[in-house]
């Protein structure tokens, strides 16, 4: 009998008849997404096809939809048999897991869904920092994240917890001159998503001059960051040591096994090998998952 890192939804929720609420939007979807983001709304939700799907009526009572929706939201049933509805269910579950894990004092890096990395800050098991005073602080976050398969089995949801990692480079304002010639990105500029070359830094004005193709443009230094790519870390001679910390290597007994790492985490996040997610404040919907054991047939 094998223990696994795979969980299956329990029978008390039938995901082919999953209850939630739907509000018809009177604004663009992007405005709705931004409203959730800026309001720091943790209620599981998903915006698609001119509608918002969510699981907690509290949002309606608080007037959250007054400026967003046409008429009063309705209760609906969605099914994981359909691609879009399975995506809605999956996305709402990712957000519920996020709330659950944040509630256990874990931090999240890299987004909420497929790239999320959950970790304990200030814990050597999860975070390794390399401080180079005149250059940057390099961090490796070694953690875990959920991967949901909402459409794999009719009426059920399967959920993996897998190990993940994230690299970061934090450059102090005085140290930007050390990064001239390197590739950088700019935060919060939807019009530019590429990697630009850092050409010049004006520390006094707090401005970076960047080049992308033939275009030269300026950006506030506060918005510029160095993506922690393997190439950049390699040039700084740090990639191998950072990757070694992040890697869970089945070949090397000196490194932690990913299952042993996850087993440690399961002690923190599970109760009786199960995970219970509250989808609303009324306790109307709760989604439970049981850990699966495997045996040879």
């Amino acid at each position, binding site marked *: 009998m094998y223990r*696994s*890192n795979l969980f299956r939804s329990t029978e008390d929720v039938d995901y082919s008849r999953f209850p939630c609420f739907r509000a018809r939007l009177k604004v663009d979807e992007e405005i709705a997404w931004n409203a959730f983001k800026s309001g720091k709304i943790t209620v599981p939700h998903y915006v698609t096809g001119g509608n918002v799907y969510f699981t907690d009526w509290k949002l309606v009572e608080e007037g959250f939809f007054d400026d967003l929706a046409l008429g009063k939201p309705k209760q609906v049933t969605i099914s994981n048999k359909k691609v879009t509805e399975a995506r809605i269910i999956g996305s709402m579950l990712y957000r519920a897991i996020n709330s659950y894990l944040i509630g256990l004092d874990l931090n999240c890096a890299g987004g909420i869904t497929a790239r999320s990395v959950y970790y304990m800050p200030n814990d050597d098991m999860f975070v390794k920092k390399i401080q180079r005073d005149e250059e940057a602080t390099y961090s490796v976050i070694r953690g875990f994240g959920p991967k949901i398969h909402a*459409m794999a089995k009719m009426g059920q949801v399967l959920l993996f917890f897998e190990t993940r990692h994230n690299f970061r480079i934090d450059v102090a304002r005085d140290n930007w001159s050390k990064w001239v010639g390197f*590739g950088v990105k700019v935060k919060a500029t939807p019009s530019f998503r590429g990697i630009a070359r850092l050409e010049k830094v004006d520390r006094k004005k707090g401005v970076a001059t960047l080049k992308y193709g033939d275009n030269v443009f300026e950006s506030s230094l506060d918005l510029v960051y160095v993506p922690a790519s393997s190439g950049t870390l390699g040039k700084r001679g740090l990639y191998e040591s950072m990757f070694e910390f992040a890697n869970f290597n*089945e070949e090397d007994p000196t490194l932690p096994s990913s299952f042993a790492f996850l087993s440690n985490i399961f002690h923190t996040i599970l109760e009786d*090998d199960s995970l219970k997610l509250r989808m609303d404040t009324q306790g109307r919907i709760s989604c439970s998952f049981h850990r699966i054991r495997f045996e*040879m047939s």
Partner: protein
Amino acid sequence: MSKESLDMLEPPLLHFKAGKKATDPVKAFAILGYHPLKVPDLPSIPKIHVLGPARDRKCKNVMTILEDLKKGKTGKYPRSVYKPFSETFGLDIELGEYEEYKDVSNVYRKITEISRNADRKAHVVVVVSTARSPLGGFYYEIKNTSIDKDVQTQIILKKTVDNYVMVMDESNRGDFLWNFSFGIFSKLGGIPWRLGQLLQGVSAFMSLNTVSSFEEAGIIKREGVVAFELANNWGDPLGRFFSKGVEVNIEKGARVVDLESIHILMEKALDEIELALVDPEKCKEQDYIVIHVKDRYADTVYDKVAETIAEKGFEKFKIIHIQEQGPLRLYDDSKQIRQAWPQAGAYWYLEDGRIAFLFTLGTWRYSISQEREPYIIGARDVSPLQVNFVKGTKGSKLITDDLRHIYHLTRLHYYSADIPRIKMPFTIRLGAKAAHLAASGLASSDFPISFLY
């Protein structure tokens, strides 16, 4: 408690000389006394040349490995016994003196000298490298020269040499020598084994590989490579095609490839497949062309693949995405330490007809014990392949035969000293290597398909 069952695929029967068959190559050679399927007919006694970096005396320890490879090694455990090379393969080998290289030009010179000999097929150059190479680095430069000059090379990492001499126990050394010897033997033109059973229902396997274009510090490069590797339904190499300077981008996690390049290369590949079919009309109607990919591609790429296959008159196809690190981890907390992991061949469908997990090799060792399973996976967590059905002819889906084929194709990496680490079908590895070599300067795919690297 929620329970699921793992099913098992039988390990592939491998075919040795005189129609002998076995599932475990080392058991076949070491205990059963089988002989390799094909011993090369060479004009002279094969010579192994050895080059190591100057100013690194530890690298000279590679000679210990080569001497053990030639003379054999005894040990108290079954796996630690490695027979002399000549006894196992019916081929004597001569070891050259250890030579030092200062830079890659010294290695070129050595390869070029050998290439001038009429008996160059009887030479293999073993080169110790101090580190793994990035794209275009030392490894790729040497392999490209090796292909240009038609001289086989075997790169070995200094770390491996150090481990062999200082860290490995008897059993590990035995494992290593078996792997290494298969690599050297096949690079001398030998075929130690092949699959003993036809992979049913398939005309040919193709792997599609790309090296993506990338952005670097404000300069947008569009110099991707697309490569196809082909094998027939016995798993024998059938063709290798690549095209350089192709636009390959990544958008929303999926690779977008210039469709005309895909079309032209696939046409060539399908022509090659058709030429090799015994009964083309019947095979084109009844059997599948199976395309394995290890990266995610945009739908437009899959559509172009499907369209080209149909244009060439092949009626059935499947595109299967194989992810090397599936997320499933299994752990047996019982006391049976040596059998703690699902054996190679264990599989489970996450979603019927679409997603499966398949344990192929991972880190495993040869075992020549009569009592145990031939391949024992180490008592640590091992990840399965995640096998995803992407697209296919109407009505087709992922079936257990597809998993069986993938599993069997993982047993044909005998040319690599890295056998224990390779979980993927050999077609994917060779195709990916071809793409990387092309991206590192290899000019043309016009070299013998039997050339292994």
